[in-house]
């Protein structure tokens, strides 16, 4: 990938190093350090707080490095059943919605990318236009429907809603992915007597795995983030997802007037570390998925 920009032009010229250039370089690295500090400082602060005893957290002057270490908040986090339950709920809802989204979205995308039929553009428009659709605008109607079909206050409600709201992105990524795949393989499969569905399921789906992984990760992260629907549709704390559990940390404790920062930040770190690991491992895929829609626009 070419990385030539305004900033890197001087490197292409052969000139003796001038003092001005050294200063420029130092300033540039200072800017890099500043950017990194800006991004990472809040994480440091959360980690610092999670290892401090309660009494020290509320103390002034503020300690920038904890004087007394404790892992008590982590012990609390792992013995808090609501929180553990929430992790399980989030995992269940996220995985179920993502798997269904991949199955539904990929088959729809394949149909849209490879077949020609009446109403094809209408279907494509409808699905993609959904992406601009604010979820908040159907909150009341969804709430009513879910109560009518007795899915209110169940995890199924979230799975169905998250699945639907993830379809536009899935279809967007997957149909351009299918379009970019060569047609020879499908034709060979047809010649060998495979049915259309067999061709899709046995030949195209395995080959589309990289695209499915990208779209799947983005869907999963979207499900873990979601707060509005979870807050509105899940009444009992045994159905809370992680964002709800963290927003409510300490809500059922005796000292409701004081936020248990240590516990909350410990929970934050417990949830965050696997997420960060996933992001760092899959960063290429995530970046390509995130920018897929933007670059073509």
């Amino acid at each position, binding site marked *: 990938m*070419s990385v*030539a920009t*305004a900033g*890197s*032009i001087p*490197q*292409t010229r052969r000139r003796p190093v001038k003092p001005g250039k050294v200063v420029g370089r130092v300033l*540039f690295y200072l*800017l890099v350090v500043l950017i*990194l500090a800006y991004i990472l400082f*809040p994480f440091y*602060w959360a980690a610092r707080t999670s290892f401090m005893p309660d009494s020290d957290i509320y103390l*002034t002057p*503020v300690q*920038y490095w904890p004087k007394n270490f404790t892992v008590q908040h982590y012990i609390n986090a792992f013995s808090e059943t609501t929180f553990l339950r929430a992790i399980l709920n989030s995992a269940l809802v996220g995985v179920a919605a993502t798997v269904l989204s991949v199955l*539904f*979205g990929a*088959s*729809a995308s394949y*149909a849209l990318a490879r*077949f*020609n039929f*009446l109403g*094809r*553009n209408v279907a494509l*428009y409808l*699905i*993609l236009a959904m992406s601009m659709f*604010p979820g*908040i*605008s159907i*909150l*009341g*109607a969804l*709430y*009513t*429907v879910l109560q009518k079909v007795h899915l209110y206050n169940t995890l199924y409600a979230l799975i169905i809603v998250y*699945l639907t709201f*993830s379809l*536009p992105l899935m*279809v*967007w990524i997957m149909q*351009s992915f299918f379009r970019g795949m060569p047609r020879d393989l499908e034709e060979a499969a047809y010649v060998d007597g495979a049915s259309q569905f067999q061709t899709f399921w046995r030949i195209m789906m395995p080959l589309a795995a990289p695209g499915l992984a990208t779209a799947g990760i983005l*869907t999963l992260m979207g499900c873990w*983030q979601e*707060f*509005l629907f979870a807050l*509105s549709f899940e009444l009992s704390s045994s159905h809370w997802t992680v*964002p709800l559990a963290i*927003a409510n940390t300490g809500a059922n404790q005796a000292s409701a007037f004081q*936020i248990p*920062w240590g516990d*909350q*930040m410990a929970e934050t770190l417990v949830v965050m570390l696997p997420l*960060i690991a996933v992001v760092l491992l899959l*960063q290429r895929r995530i*970046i390509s998925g*995130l*920018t897929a*829609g933007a670059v073509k626009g």
Partner: protein
Amino acid sequence: MSARPPAPAAVAEGARVAGRQRRARSLESTNARFAYLMLVPSLLCLALVAFYPMVNTILTSFTDTTFGQANSNFVGLKNYVTLVQDPTFRSAIGVSVRFTVITVVFEFLLGLIVALVVNTAFRGRGAVRAAMLIPWALITVISAAMWKLMYNQIYGVFNDLLVNKLHVLAINQDFLGSRATALPAVAAIDIWKTTPFIALLLLAGLQLIPGDVYEAADVDGAGKIRTFFSITLPLLMPSILVAVVIRALDALRVFDVFYVLFGQRPDTTTMSILVQEQIIYFGKVGYGSAVSVGILAIIAVFIVIYMLMSRWSAARS
């Protein structure tokens, strides 16, 4: 949801490509039935979870439906008349729009700077780019909680830095509590979380600009600033437009961060908070639906403006 939807222009582009391919594929025209079957699950979801509730919302907005009351009556435009006169709704629009303007402007400017830095070859560039993804991946509710702690009036780190270390402020401030600073404070959280994402979008755009354009500018003796304003910025315009619109549409429906920091405080009620409060807490589904339709209309205005702008910029280039 945080997963980014395709940009509106990209939607149009997708449909255009679809149209072009229609003629070329006569062979599959007999396979329509298979294609319909493949589409059924997705379209069923959309119909039941999005379109049916949408139609229902519009219909309900003309009634006085309330939870716990068996009867609901058609009340015509009454809810909309109330809506237009409701100071809470006007204030909610104001909060949402101000939040959108502040965050989009700062996220764009800071994002551009970060994108330009990361687009330069330097040691540790990969690490910086990886670090940029972390705030994006963070759950919004968690980032709100992290910043709430840092904003604390007594033992918050911002007050300590500004009062005791940098001596910018004379006394500790209640950043979230006071009316004047609440909105900038919550905007700062969104800016922190989303700037790296905008930077990644702009970076992708920057990497599409061919290197020889810069070489030509260099040969012609254009300085760095001149190069930036006459080459980088115009060529980056499509990416900028997309990034700004995606953000604006997201920011207009902001909910999570305000809810965690302020709950249902009147002066920080955004459009989304108002709807959630009316429907879920007060059970006023009829009026809440009217507010929903109002939000949809406001967002539609933004989408139309964007479409006009992108058509205009496409015509110019």
